[in-house]
């Protein structure tokens, strides 16, 4: 936005990073004061690794950096922080057993002689949350009791609250919905005015177009180029740079086809648990893709968990395949044996075995495919199956023995999806399926939805990214404050109507505006 004359805040020169193999090759990067600089690249391109090096979380193998013109070589996170470099990481890093306030100010407690001043602590925390519009979060609450979205907001609020010159946001909006994203952007604009240099990573290109000044593209750990964002119109053209193919972006928009057939696959009736989910009714046909929209904390994750039997329901039943006898799953095992599958939102907590290999993770729920009745695993068969999945999901890894914890965030998500693809199911529950997934892979997953629908599966897709729902779903239900307040079809939906319904549960608690058909 501003001219070329801005002084440089941070430069990165010929940076290399080796893990078992080299993941960054001679990367160049520069960040001016008062700019928002987007970092783009496919999953595993090395964006997070670069940011982690800048933030002092991991050392570079070679190369140099300068901050405000001086040589910059942070020993650890603390020394980076003291020089004014802050980071919000891609993965959540809260301490669930501490309160919201303590998490916000961890490492910066107001104290005297080591004794925490709790009044000040809560006052500071309150102020920080309010500044970010998080009025509804109690500073005394345990961080562990917040939903993923709220936790992400909390982490962002914590970083924004500290004074910094360089702010790194690694996919901050992956778990946020439109409202929160907007508030974040307002805040970022303010910081930019104050001269903070911001590195912004996101796979949502529209966000980049909206807020970033310049962008840098990484591909396979190599620096590709840096551009003004204005150079790309439409922004999708940047995908060519990321993938290295020309015209890749052309396939971006596909025509939607509905595969729904008139045969009910799953019907949820009166499902509820405490105040988190209340009396939810909907049904999904075979071949239908049913999206669920809502704000952070509206109970979408909880709804899926109830359907899948991960939490106890207080009320309600589930009918499958048009059968008349209802189910109430008391354990995911029973749900799975009734041919349900669920890709969870929080892959770190309950989606993946981080210290285990891709192979072990992929086949975990499909052991019956590999083992006879005695339970002895057919290893070569296993390897073959996993290789196939790795191919279809395009998981970027050294080999299938690499432990999932060392994969890039997006590739971890792909493993989580691959696990359930291997297992054949009738009903797929996807909770934020493309969180942290790059544009190309995201398209792959959308194609996958298409394929699953074509095979007559029922898909329930929860996403905070409305665009995604518009792109893929046949029907969208909106949740607000634990209730399913409305349903829309392709014909009836619009961005504004859905956003309005998202807020409805919070503004007028008793009335539900039910618009749309397909009930």
């Amino acid at each position, binding site marked *: 936005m501003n001219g070329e004359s801005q002084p440089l805040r941070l430069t990165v020169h010929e940076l290399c990073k080796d893990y078992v193999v080299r993941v960054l090759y001679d990367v160049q990067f520069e960040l001016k004061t008062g700019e928002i600089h987007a970092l783009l690249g496919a999953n595993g391109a090395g964006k997070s690794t670069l940011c982690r090096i800048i933030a002092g*979380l991991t050392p570079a193998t070679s190369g140099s950096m300068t901050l405000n013109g001086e040589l910059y070589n942070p020993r*650890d*996170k*603390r020394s*980076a*922080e003291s020089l004014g470099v802050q980071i919000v*990481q891609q993965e959540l*890093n*809260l*301490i*669930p*057993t*501490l*309160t919201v306030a*303590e998490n916000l100010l*961890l*490492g910066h*407690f107001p*104290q005297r002689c*080591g*004794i*925490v001043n*709790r*009044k000040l*602590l*809560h006052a500071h925390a309150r102020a920080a949350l309010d500044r970010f519009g998080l009025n509804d979060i109690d500073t*005394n609450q*345990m961080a*562990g*009791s917040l939903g993923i979205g709220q936790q992400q907001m909390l982490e962002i609020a914590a970083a924004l609250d500290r004074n910094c010159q360089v702010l790194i946001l690694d996919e901050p909006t992956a778990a946020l919905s439109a409202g929160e994203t907007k508030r974040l952007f307002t805040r970022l604009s303010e910081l930019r005015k104050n001269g903070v240099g911001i590195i912004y990573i996101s796979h949502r290109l529209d966000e980049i177009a909206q807020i970033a000044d310049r962008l840098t593209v990484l591909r396979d750990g190599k620096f590709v180029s840096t551009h003004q964002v204005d150079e790309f119109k439409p922004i999708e053209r940047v995908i060519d740079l990321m993938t290295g193919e020309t015209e890749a972006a052309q396939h971006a928009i596909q025509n939607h086809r509905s595969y729904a057939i008139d045969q009910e696959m799953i019907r949820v009736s009166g499902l509820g648990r405490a105040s988190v989910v209340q009396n939810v009714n909907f049904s999904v046909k075979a071949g239908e893709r049913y999206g669920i929209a809502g704000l952070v904390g509206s109970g979408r994750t909880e709804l899926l968990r109830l359907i899948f039997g991960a939490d106890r329901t207080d009320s309600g039943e589930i009918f499958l395949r048009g059968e008349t006898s209802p189910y109430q799953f008391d354990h995911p095992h029973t749900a799975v044996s009734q041919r349900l599958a669920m890709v969870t939102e929080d892959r770190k907590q309950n989606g993946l075995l981080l210290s285990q290999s891709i192979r072990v993770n992929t086949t975990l729920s499909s052991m019956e495919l590999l083992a006879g009745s005695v339970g002895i695993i057919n290893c070569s068969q296993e390897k073959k199956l996993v290789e196939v999945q790795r191919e279809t999901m395009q998981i970027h890894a050294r080999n299938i023995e690499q432990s999932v914890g060392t994969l890039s965030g997006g590739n971890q998500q792909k493993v989580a999806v691959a696990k359930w693809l291997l297992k054949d199911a009738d009903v797929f529950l996807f909770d934020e399926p493309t969180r942290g997934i790059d544009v190309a892979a995201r398209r792959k997953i959308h194609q996958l939805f298409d394929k699953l629908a074509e095979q007559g599966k029922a898909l329930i897709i929860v996403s905070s990214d409305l665009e995604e729902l518009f792109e893929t779903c046949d029907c969208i239900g909106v949740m607000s404050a634990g209730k399913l307040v409305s349903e829309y079809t392709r014909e009836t939906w619009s961005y504004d109507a859905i956003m309005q319904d998202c807020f409805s549960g919070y503004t007028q608690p008793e009335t539900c505006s039910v618009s749309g058909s397909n009930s």
Partner: protein
Amino acid sequence: MNDSPAPVSETPSASRSVSENLMSSLLQYAGLLGVLALLVLIFSMMSQNFLSQQTLITIANHIPDLTVIAVGMTLVLIIGGIDLSVGSLLALSSAVLGVLMVNYGWPLWAAVPICLGVGAFCGVLNGVISVKAGIPSFIVTLGMLEMARGSAYLMTDSQTKYIGSSIEWIGVPMKGLAFSPAFLLSLVIVFVGQYLLTRTVFGRYCIAIGTNVEAVRMSGIRTAPYSITVFTISGLMCGLAGIMQTSRLSTADPNAAVGLELAAIAACVIGGTSLMGGRGSVINTFFGVLIIAVLQTGLAQVGASDPIKRVITGAVIIVAVLLDAARQRWKRRG
């Protein structure tokens, strides 16, 4: 089994009103107090002299060593570690005290700092090796258990050292007060421990480290100094407990406190401290110690045979934790 998914910790909030706070604390301790009351009730019915001032004093005066060690252990467990060496460290520091006072004729005031120092030094070793080399504290302290015990035997030439009255005053009831200085000191340490844990930066960091070290490191906090400090505190407590036990028995015994680590851990866990780290309360640990002590004394007064004692002790440990778990589940739901 892995712990049940991280239950909500119970730090009382700062901004509630005082009376609410009091109520919630009482409720928080209700489960353990209930178990304790039940035990007292049962033993009072079974033994004529159990419910007497004498018994109370008896119990009070022989728990200080276990108490202070359990306080240290609580901190260690909270950061996700474990300290198996406490019993041996107690014996070693007691041996040092005994040798200095008996063989070299040192006065008490001069021997005590050395004794505490030995405990703290071994604690530092535990901490540094486990933190810096990144090997589990279970194994480091298991090694220390053997080494410290061996050193205690070497030190004393495998002989018990009778010190006599010069040290006795610490462990026997004070004139007119019924409680020993050691007991009062252990109470002070319980309260200091609880304050440290809930009100200071150090305590908050300990909880955070036990919950997720990696996340704490990501927050720009150097975790090693805190972890090492915690092991040092545990070692120091062993030194202190060594003094307490030596004074109670007037004797330094290199065979002392075999298996004490399990008793201390049991006290912590009965008090609701998680073995996975991140959760615990010093006050509750103290209740755990009381439960163990009442059980021991009660069974002895009833005159139960050794096998029966062991069966009952085992059952009570399990039942106490079961009850507490049930109460917490109920509380979280209600």
